[in-house]
């Protein structure tokens, strides 16, 4: 596969703040690539640099085999010279043009004949299921329809790359879910590579072929949704993608393919765990666990080695599952069990861990993760 978009060492500073710090990535043809991170992490700045709306200080950007930005040679094509389509968070549907004019504008600017524009716009409208709304003004459309118009406008020229800046964040939850499926379908149909920016991890996990996780301008990890969820490269990725709770533990013994740790109050427990080279070899550490990897059993059953004693503080019924906040020693951990198992608030439970990540106890700067 050939890369449609390549970023190499992209760096963007605003005064003292480095918004994008030496980011490199590449997107293949047909790929749905998401950049995810908390607000202010630099994901939007990266996207805007790709669009040409921001100029970076270092690095270079190649698009469809052409260099569109290169800090070294001071080459910086303006957005209108880049083969892109872009969808903005705020829709940015022009209020003084009707739907037809909105979608046809990129074609008109490129000097296409009237007939060709008409045919193309109609095809886009049909694809988006808005075939008869061309004459409407944007103020007559719902938020979801406006977002569809924005998408249609970006698709109209059949760009080499589609850029999406949190396009669903202004929609309500139900609509967001259906638009998610629709967007994925459009991408399948057109085969367009997409660079997608979002702070919503569900969105990113559900739609993407690959995900790049960013924080404070730094790209921490690039991988498939399964990879970033199950094999987080850094402590930040572990925290940001999904939910984790931390339990204190102690690394007792270190072997090639396994470690033995002690946690909770139930004495030693050995665990077969995959080993990351950077994990502490012995001494105090933390055991990070995901809610779905914790097992709860009523305490009537004996506490065995490898289990800890806990107490249910809060429970919440989610329909398809129960969520518990369980106090174990000094820690409060979050647990998710299927809806069949209902435990009373205040009841004593035995806590077991199926899988976890051993990380450094001091979360100061070290970011080391061990995965099972």
């Amino acid at each position, binding site marked *: 596969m050939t890369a449609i978009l390549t970023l190499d060492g992209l760096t963007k500073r605003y005064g003292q703040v480095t918004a994008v710090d030496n980011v490199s990535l590449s997107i293949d043809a047909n790929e749905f690539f998401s950049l995810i991170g908390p607000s202010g992490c630099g994901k939007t700045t990266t996207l805007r640099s790709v669009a040409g709306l921001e100029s970076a200080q270092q690095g270079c950007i190649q698009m469809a085999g052409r260099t569109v930005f290169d800090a070294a040679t001071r080459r910086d094509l*303006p957005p*209108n*010279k880049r083969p892109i389509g*872009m969808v*903005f968070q705020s829709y940015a549907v*022009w209020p003084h043009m009707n739907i037809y004019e909105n979608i046809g504008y990129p074609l008109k600017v490129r000097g296409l004949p009237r007939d060709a524009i008409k045919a193309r716009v109609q095809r886009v409208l049909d694809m988006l299921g808005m075939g008869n709304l061309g004459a409407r003004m944007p103020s007559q459309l*719902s938020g979801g329809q406006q977002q569809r118009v924005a998408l249609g406008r970006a698709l109209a020229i*059949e760009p080499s790359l589609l850029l999406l800046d949190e396009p669903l964040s202004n929609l309500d939850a139900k609509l967001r879910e259906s638009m998610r499926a629709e967007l994925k379908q459009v991408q399948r149909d057109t085969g367009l590579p997409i660079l997608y920016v979002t702070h919503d991890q569900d969105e990113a996990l559900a739609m993407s072929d690959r995900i790049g996780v960013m924080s404070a301008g730094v790209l921490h990890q690039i991988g498939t949704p399964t990879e970033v969820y199950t094999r987080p490269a850094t402590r930040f990725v572990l925290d940001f993608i999904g939910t984790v709770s931390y339990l204190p533990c102690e690394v007792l013994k270190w072997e090639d393919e396994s470690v033995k740790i002690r946690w909770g109050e139930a004495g030693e427990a050995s665990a077969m765990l995959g080993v990351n080279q950077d994990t502490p070899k012995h001494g105090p550490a933390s055991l990070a666990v995901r809610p779905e990897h914790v097992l709860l059993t009523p305490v009537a059953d004996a506490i065995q080695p490898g289990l800890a004693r806990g107490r249910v503080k809060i429970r919440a019924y989610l329909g398809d599952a129960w969520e518990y906040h369980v106090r174990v020693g000094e820690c409060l951990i979050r647990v998710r069990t299927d809806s069949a198992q209902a435990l009373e608030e205040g009841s004593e439970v035995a806590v077991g861990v199926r899988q976890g990540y051993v990380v450094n106890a001091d979360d100061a700067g070290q970011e080391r993760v061990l995965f099972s």
Partner: protein
Amino acid sequence: MSQRITPQHKVSEPPALLRWWLDYRRVMLLLLTLFIAITIVYPLYQVFWRSLMVDGEWSLANYSAVFLRPSNYMALWNTLWVSVLATGLAVLIGTLAAFVVQRTDVPHKALLSVLLVLPFAIPPLFSAIGWVQLAGPVGLFTQWWRELFGAPPPWNIYSPGGIIFVLAVTNYPFVFITVAGALARMDSSLEEAARTSGVGPLRIMKDITLPLVRPAILGGALLAFVSSIDNFGIPAVLGMRAQFYVLTTRIYEALTIPNMPLATAMSVLLVLVAIVCLVAFRRLEGSRGQYAVISGKSVTPNVIRLGKARPWVLAALYLTLVVIVLMPVFALVLTSLLRFWGADLSADNFTLRHYIAVLNQSGARRGIINSLILAPAAATIIVIVSAMIAYLNVKARQRGAGLLDGIATVPFALPGSVIGVSMILAWSNPAFGPTLYGTLWILLAGYIMRYMAFGLQSTRSTLQQIHDSLEEAAWTSGASRLRTIRDITLPLLRPGMLAGWVLIFISAFNELTVSVLIWTTGAETIGVWIFLMQDSGFTGRAAALAVLTLPVILLLYLFTQWLTKLEARRRERRAGKPDA
């Protein structure tokens, strides 16, 4: 799908430094800076610099001259106390009217609101003439009083009291609009909280509502005050005959002598008065802290039921409106149609001869034509220039454009007399370029300086409401910067530009304070002619000319009202998006 459309690009780039300078933003900023420097900074510099010069030497002699002659410093003192009292009266009328309309169950609220702000559309000079015809020595009210009581009335319109009264009934809409707006937007839960604590409605007004709208009252008062010290027409018509001078009329007198240095020094004093008052008001506003409670929508405000008093309150309101708003206009119209003022209202006393006289007078005709040229010309130039400044400032975020915007807004705080004096200083014997004094150009320059802020205000606020992404979407759609401005920015900016244009047109069309100082034979305006005719005793003709211009002003005024309503409705529609 069919063929991909990729933009053709041929890259041949000029050298970096040249490209930097050729950047359209820098070129635009440079040209606009030049424009503002010539039209605004240079005249301002002339006023302050010349006021400190005597025979080419630095000196404070001009200022000491102001204070050595009692007639001069009296004018400063008169300006202050007259404006303070007029503002006080305007606050009383405006606040009372706002409370009655917003916080009682008085009927006809929509009509009342329109009528109450109508004085905005009537030029102060017109009201001054109208009030002379009503309350002057042979005025209607004066006659009625005589018939009723058989004695001369206890008032004299040619007096400080007359000036204060007419200033107040001209300027109270500033207070009414700000206070009524604040009352309408006030969070009603603040009043409800008091009501549920068992406090009566009148007590709530006094303890909760009034303190909360205090900033709005102060804001309206400031506008009324600045408008009072700026006014020329009212003290000129009502004060000069009684030898009662304020700074604006004193400057006018000094220029007819002409004593340029004295006029200049008094202009600077007038600026100082304006600045001192501005600062004082800001202090007053700031000392209590700003309340952030006036926002959001009000549902059920605390309304006082008038009960049996309701028809009486309504009648009193209408009577007041008729007396202070409609009667002056009515008197003006009557004056223009009567053979002479004071004649019986019988059919053979009605005549069109004042109109015929005005239209046969070549000077007056020229004045009409000049105003019809100057007002649209000033409005067009200002709106175009301010749209460019606002674009550089708000959208292109060009460094320096914000400063330029600020400098161009300064004359807004300057009394018109100061702008008039600065025009004479700058353009009667300019350091560069042609002499504009004696031509229409100096009036155009004066109007541009005076109304630049109107254009900047309307274009700036409109551009701030246009989200950046609308332009970026066009840009990423393949449109160049220029094309984006043409296809996206300009169409969206047009309503703001239109509103600014009409506002400037109305203001410039009947401008007097600046014009009366810088007009010359051949370069007169409508306002100047009305004033001159009134001043030389041809009140009938002055009234006729005023009545001829009123429909233009009123129609445009109603047009702006309609525009703002339309804009508000459109914004509401946009805010309340229909959902699927």
